[in-house]
């Protein structure tokens, strides 16, 4: 099963993911540590090395940029990508000076001063004061310390061109706060323009720290999304466009394959040929499966759990060359299929 990897942002730790972790139920999840490196590619490489298997990446702010870099480096391992309060824009004019000033402040005046200078602008300005939350966030910033702060700011200043690298095709969830002036909604719309499959959720009454400003709303969305990703990932194949007959597909397709297995006998074939509807009605197929069989839609039958070794028996009652079944699944004309997949005869 895929593991959810929560990647925190600048001078953040598991505090920002507490509510989301609590909502994950049976979905395995862990908080990433990006405190040891001073470049986003190094952070991404480090996490890919430390965390095995299929990953569902959930990144906040700087953590979102690390997640995007991981997806660029190892898209085959990324089962899903959730990006919160983040962006893909390169370093902006004036950004370098401001960030260096913060690094200096962290060392010269301490992280409490950094927290006091930095945190208020990150929050929803319209919300009533929340001293308990500010205290917890300030403690976290102090806990992370000036070295982590400096390393992570340097990583932001040398960040790769995230937009150019973002070609992820898998499930994506984008989330930001309605009142996030640091990473506004428009930045997430820019990401969705590159990845149209992404779903964009706006969290009301939240700023840049949406995961702690509206913990319940964020946690609920993340948990629902992650559970769906995990389920689909089990059903999906690890190798693109290659459906393996595993438990989920077996459950989906059992009745369809049983219907096809019935064509192994002369009686079954005669019944099918004399009254296809009545024959199909014996097997509790879904309406979609029935329609796919009647249309001889091979790609759809496989998508609905048909295994070719079984559904192939349909070609005994309704002769269809195996190569035509292949071409139909590949979505290619027969000539293109033969040219591009099977190629020229080679012998000897």
């Amino acid at each position, binding site marked *: 099963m895929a593991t959810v990897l929560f990647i925190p942002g600048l001078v953040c730790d598991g505090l920002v993911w507490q509510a989301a972790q609590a909502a994950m139920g049976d979905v395995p999840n862990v908080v990433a540590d990006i405190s040891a490196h001073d470049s986003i590619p190094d952070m991404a490489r480090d996490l890919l090395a430390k965390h095995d298997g299929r990953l569902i990446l959930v990144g906040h702010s700087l953590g979102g940029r690390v997640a995007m870099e991981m997806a660029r480096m190892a898209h085959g391992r990324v089962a899903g990508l959730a990006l919160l309060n983040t962006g893909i824009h390169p370093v902006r004019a004036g950004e370098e000076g401001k960030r260096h000033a913060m690094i200096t402040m962290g060392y010269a005046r301490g992280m409490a001063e950094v927290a006091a200078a930095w945190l208020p602008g990150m929050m929803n300005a319209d919300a009533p004061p929340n001293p308990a939350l500010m205290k917890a966030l300030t403690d976290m910033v102090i806990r992370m310390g000036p070295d982590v702060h400096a390393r992570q700011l340097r990583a932001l200043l040398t960040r790769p061109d995230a937009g150019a690298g973002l070609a992820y095709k898998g499930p994506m969830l984008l989330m930001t706060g309605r009142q996030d002036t640091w990473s506004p909604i428009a930045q997430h719309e820019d990401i969705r323009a590159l990845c149209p499959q992404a779903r964009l959720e706006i969290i009301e009454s939240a700023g840049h720290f949406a995961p702690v400003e509206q913990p319940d709303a964020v946690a609920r969305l993340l948990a629902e999304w992650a559970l769906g990703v995990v389920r689909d990932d089990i059903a999906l*194949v*690890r*190798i*693109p*466009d*290659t*459906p*393996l*007959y*595993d*438990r989920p597909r*077996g459950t989906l397709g*059992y009745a369809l*394959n*049983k219907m096809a*297995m019935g*064509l*192994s*006998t*002369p009686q079954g*074939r005669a019944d099918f040929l004399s009254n296809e509807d009545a024959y199909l009605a014996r097997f509790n197929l879904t309406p979609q499966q029935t329609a796919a069989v009647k249309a001889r839609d091979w*790609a759809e039958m*496989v998508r609905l759990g048909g*295994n*070719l*070794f*079984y559904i*192939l*028996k349909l*070609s*005994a*009652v309704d002769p269809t060359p*195996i*190569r035509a*079944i*292949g*071409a139909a*699944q*590949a*979505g*290619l004309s027969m000539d293109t*299929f033969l040219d591009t*997949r*099977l*190629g020229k*005869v*080679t*012998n*000897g």
Partner: protein
Amino acid sequence: MAKLIAGIGTSHVPSIAAALDKGLRHTDEWAPFFNGYIPAQDWVAAQKPDIAVVIFNDHGNAFFLDRVPTLALGVADNYAPIDEGWGPRPVPDFLGAADFAWHLADTMVERHFDPLICRELEVDHGMQVPMELIFGRPQVWPVKVVPILVNTIQYPIPTPQRMWDLGRTLRAAIESYPTDEKVVVLGTGGLSHQLQGARAGYINPDEDRKWIADIGPNPQRYRDMTREDYIQVFGSEGAELIMWLVMRGCMDERVNTLSRHYFAPASMTGAGMVLLENA
């Protein structure tokens, strides 16, 4: 004691059977494929083996998905061709080497391979086609058979490493069998092909040729590959090649490749054969 005289790896593509049934053996399309088997056929005929152990997968014919044996072993006296949807093919029944099959069952279980043991079994193209490719279409098959069926359809399928170990166990069974019968082992399936999904029609002739060249002298790479590697390199149904590892694992570390052949595509499959003897 019985003697292992050869290991043979071969495809078992159903279109080969259809080509034979339609009398296409000598056509321009098919003759180069079938002719490539002639040296191996001649060699095997001259050796006069007594028993052929055939490792193959059932293709949704003898077993439905209601119960899927990871490993099944035939101990019957007779195996008829099964109806795969077009009626049983006009292939003679196969006579079973029941005594050796029961000895193999004992050896397997002693060594912790626990197969489904089949007293009645009809066999599909997975066994028919390799037998026809090696022994032609006689009135009576010149060898008795022992079918070993491996699940390669429903996941989890067994690992390549387990298949190799099964080959070691098969060898131990042959060498502890108190007759002077001569045994050939046929590992079947593959080579590269994929029948399902949008990647249907995938074949990989370069990797197929490497397989044909290396399965005898350099099998280590194929022992080390995962099931996912097999699917990636050889396609989802190309993962059937793990069954060749039973044959190769049965052989000595050092073997001579006596004959080899490759042809692509046979229908939607890279098809090929190797004939190995212990060096």
